[in-house]
């Protein structure tokens, strides 16, 4: 009995202690971040967290976000999804229970799709900065748009077409080949759109080769591609794998043009790939060298804080936060449903990555840019409008 009362006392004291640690009253807004901090694309997670911390710091330094006449500080809860579908869903669940108002992330579609299911059923706003696979914002069973899931990036139905048109017009491809990760939603989705677009234009894809996440040897598939006498190669794969693929393609004697997608847009690609990637093209969200004044301000602040140029993930994360803050202000209250309605009623958002138009779904309509790797830098090459 005595032991029980001591235990009760300890629990009570602990309760008082813990509640004292919590900031008193609802003067903070908790926002979750679900990012790929470890796993196979850690630089994506790092860029995402950097941009998120920058966006939050800017608001807090200005005294907080004014909602319904009251200033709120923003508290960022960062969860690592390890770049795994199941961890991403679990991280989302954890953020839901931690009572965040909304969640930004995950970035890779293979993590964003399972997370979006959790966010949708928990009725919590989720904005994925970088996921481009259409499935992220669509309810799989009905094909209807999800109510609580939004994104800052264009979708692959658009990006795949842009890449295919570029291959036809700029690379003059007659025998295109594709090598993609069949175990990853993003890579698979865009590869299929690319293939379909080319075939609709009467061009047959001579080799449509696959591998699975984590593979490092592509020599067999690339030898097949060379044997099919392909003249162009589309690699819609993540930056950590592309350098190996490009080097091995050149090693087996493939000499045609190589084209990529927005998953290339990380400077890590150049540092791993070196001269082998020089001159190659890829489609992406924004070009830091033709930035608008708003984008320039962001680039300057990011460079001052982290000492490097923000990549597309950073820019899109920053835009996601911008959209969310604007929506919270428009909602006028700290309520998940109200914030959802406010995000859904945004029709035009002028972001760092350009103008985003929303037409009743969670997918923005925005233009894509094509970058070329030139002198070890991502250089603007062309713009493709929807």
């Amino acid at each position: 009995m005595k032991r029980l009362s001591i235990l009760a006392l300890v629990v009570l004291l602990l309760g008082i202690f813990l509640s004292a640690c919590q900031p008193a009253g609802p003067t903070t807004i908790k926002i979750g971040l679900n990012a790929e901090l470890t796993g196979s694309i850690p630089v994506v997670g790092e860029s995402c967290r950097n941009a998120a911390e920058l966006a939050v710091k800017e608001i807090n330094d200005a005294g907080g976000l004014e909602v319904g006449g009251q200033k709120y500080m923003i508290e960022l809860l960062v969860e690592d999804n390890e770049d795994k579908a199941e961890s991403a869903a679990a991280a989302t669940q954890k953020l839901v229970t931690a009572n965040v108002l909304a969640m930004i992330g995950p970035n890779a579609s293979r993590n964003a799709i399972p997370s979006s299911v959790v966010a949708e059923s928990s009725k919590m706003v989720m904005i994925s900065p970088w996921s481009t696979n259409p499935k992220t914002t669509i309810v799989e069973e009905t094909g209807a748009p999800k109510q609580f899931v939004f994104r800052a990036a264009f979708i692959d139905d658009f990006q795949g077409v842009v890449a295919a048109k570029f291959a036809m017009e700029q690379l003059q491809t007659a025998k295109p080949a594709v090598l993609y990760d069949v175990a990853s939603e993003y890579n698979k989705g865009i590869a299929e759109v690319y293939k379909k677009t080319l075939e609709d234009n009467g061009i047959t894809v001579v080799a449509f080769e696959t591998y699975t996440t984590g593979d490092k040897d592509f020599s067999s598939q690339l030898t097949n591609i060379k044997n099919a006498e392909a003249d162009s190669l589309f690699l819609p794969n993540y930056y950590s794998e592309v350098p190996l693929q490009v080097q091995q393609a050149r090693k087996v004697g493939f000499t045609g043009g190589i084209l990529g997608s927005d998953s290339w847009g990380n400077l890590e690609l150049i540092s791993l790939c070196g001269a082998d990637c020089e001159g190659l093209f890829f489609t992406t969200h924004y070009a830091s060298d033709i930035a608008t004044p708003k984008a320039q301000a962001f680039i300057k602040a990011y460079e001052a804080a982290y000492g490097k140029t923000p990549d597309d993930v950073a820019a899109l994360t920053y835009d996601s936060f911008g959209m969310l803050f604007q929506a919270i202000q428009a909602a006028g209250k700290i309520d998940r449903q109200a914030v959802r309605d406010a995000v859904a009623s945004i029709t035009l958002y002028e972001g760092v990555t350009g103008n985003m138009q929303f037409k009743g779904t969670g997918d923005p309509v925005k233009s894509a840019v094509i970058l070329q790797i030139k002198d070890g830098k991502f250089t603007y090459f062309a713009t493709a409008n929807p």
Partner: protein
Amino acid sequence: MEFYIQQTLNALQVGSVYALIALGYTMVYGILTMINFAHGDIFMVSTYIAFFFSTMLLGALAGLNPILAFVATLLVAMFGTALLAVIIERLAYKPLRTAPRISAVITALGVGLFLENFMVAFKPVGPAPRFLPALIPAINYNIGGVTVSTIQIVIILVSALVMILLDVIVRRTMVGMAMRAISWDKFIVPLMGVPVDRIISLTFALGASIAAVGGTLYGMAYTIDPYMGIRIGWWAFISAVVGGIGNIRGAMIGGFILGFVEIFTPVFLPSTYRDFVAFSLLLVLLIFRPTGILGRPMAQKV
């Protein structure tokens, strides 16, 4: 024709690495009847030892003879990895030697997870993929439509050399004889005066240093990252099982079989079928030859 020669070369390159790692699985199993699931991650650590040493070496002594630099890196990686494996054996496996075998297997899985996550958390390593510095200049030769790179040649030749060397050690030396004797009967042999603990440590050291050869060679051709040991470890483990786990020549054969399966499945079937074919092969083989190609029948349960 050139196409098939090219693919055969690709398969030999991949198969050599699998064979080298499979040897570690098979040797430990042979002596302890325990599957060291941390072996793939020990292989991963070896590539990082090679990475840090070669970066340091080339930084300190630019213009060093590439062959000298390569051999030095190889030896340091072998020694460092062997030391790691011996420490793991002493700390994690030895206390469990009399425990049910499943405990040791689960401990091995735990050690593997520890190594992966330690490397991710360890600041100088981190989760980002890297290339080893170019120890040997990568030159591609085109011989009648078949491209062969210097790295490919080095991988195939060094692996072959190491495997022959190991075969000699196991079959022709006293240490090798002791290893074979312990795997034959680990209760009677100690009574004959064979120092069991030392031989077991030596087996771990030998298996790990062979994995380090594989790791250094692998790092010259591919990127390295803390999670790389998982996939390669599994393929090497299947190699060991296909060849007959516990049998050294079997592991070598198994490694090359898996290398050929990995490369030639996409030649004849859509590349999506690759893993399916590899694992089906394992299943079918285990139905008809439960102890692998060269394995001897066993009465005991694993």
